């Protein structure tokens, strides 16, 4: 499965939606993912890709890991996976 599809699957599970209801341009807040959901998503991503995501729940926007939209997460994870390869 591609990084994109795996990230979408993780986000869909957090949002309690089917994968075909989640598309890259969607914002996490409009998917109903709250602060706890964000932290759980980061954990799931770290476990799935064996990476360490720099995420501080105090200042998500300053974490250097853009979690605004599904697409921004996919891009960030692709980056990190490429770097760790």
């Amino acid at each position, binding site marked *: 499965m591609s990084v994109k599809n795996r990230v979408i699957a993780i986000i869909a599970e957090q949002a309690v939606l089917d994968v075909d209801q989640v598309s890259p341009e969607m914002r996490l807040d409009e998917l109903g993912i709250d*602060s706890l959901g964000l*932290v759980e998503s*980061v954990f799931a991503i770290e476990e799935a890709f064996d990476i360490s995501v720099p995420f*501080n*729940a*105090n*200042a998500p926007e300053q974490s250097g890991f853009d979690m605004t939209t599904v697409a921004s997460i996919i891009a960030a994870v692709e980056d990190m996976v490429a770097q760790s390869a």
Partner: protein
Amino acid sequence: MRRVAITGAGTINALGHDVATTLAAMREGRCGIGPLEFRDVDRLQIRIGGQVRGWEAEAHFNRQDLALFDRFTQFTMIAARQAVTQSGLDFSGRLGLECGVVLGTAGGGVNTWDENYRTVYEDGKNRVHPFVVPKLMNNAAASHVSMEWNLRGPSFTVATACASSNHAMGLAFQMVRSGAARAMITGGSEAMLCFGGIKAWEGLRVMSKDACRPFSANRNGMVQGEGAGVFVFEDWDHAVARGADILTEVAGFAMSSDAADIVMPSQAGAERAISGALRDAGLNPADVGYVNAHGTGTAANDKTECAAVAHAFGADADRLMISSTKAMHGHLIGGTGAVELLACIMALRDGVIAPTIGYEEPDPECALDVVPNVAREAKIDAALSNAFAFGGLNAVIALKRA
């Protein structure tokens, strides 16, 4: 209703091993937070904390005691010994029947859990020490205090996460005020600075890797501490009759529940506890000179707490001093309210307001007088101590100058 006096205080925490040293550190704005030292710390992302330094348990307890005292119990016993000694009370006779102990802790014997899980899971051993259960249980500290000082009245432990100590002290206050007890030993303790304890907290992503900076715009999370604070709450007339030195009066207490979110705080819930404590103490906002804030240094707590205080105090919020001493001793979780009550006692008794150290940049969402970086001299008549726990459980104590 009876009045309630504090006639003894004791502590051990990252700032010192007794009250005098701790208050001197708070006055000087000294920081007790530093690199953590324990097994496997190199596997952690978070490597700072307010650890108790130079602690030699063997110097204070015998072999039998040590087999039963987790670190959180050791801290409790040291602090309780100081408090009882200062109070001058002797519980060995009839008085012991009318006195008890209520303590707060969130995790209890976390080090004991950690060490023994390691033994069976990591080391593959199939046997643990026979006293693991009585050592790790949350009420171990309260029970050992009751046994050491012959306290045979109401005794139990409260676990409400970061509000545990305030809930414990509030209940002790209510028992003395109602006449259910003549005096109560109360406060709380925490010792979760170990690999498993910090690893669990790391998961929430709310811990700072460099410093605790409450109310400062560049704050980036909380820093954990450890230790204990223990007090003697005594019937006012009983204390006066025996000529005891009264440190301060406990004047009121209120608790509330947000009933909303398991981790996010609520302004309304915090505000109801603050206003409730004022009402219970018969105080107006104008009477209060100082609030010891919960002030964890997280984005969520600090702005919610400032909004709650500003709203509860109205126009009086502008001249109110509010500081968080967590930047000095760290967040003692279930023990934090107890150590922070010392800052309120210092404010009322010595006229010294402990500062919020680590303050670097004003935050418009925390626009109160947070006594930045340097302690201040001020004569005040009443103080509040806030504690707001995960799970939305709030507990606020009001003290008056004796």
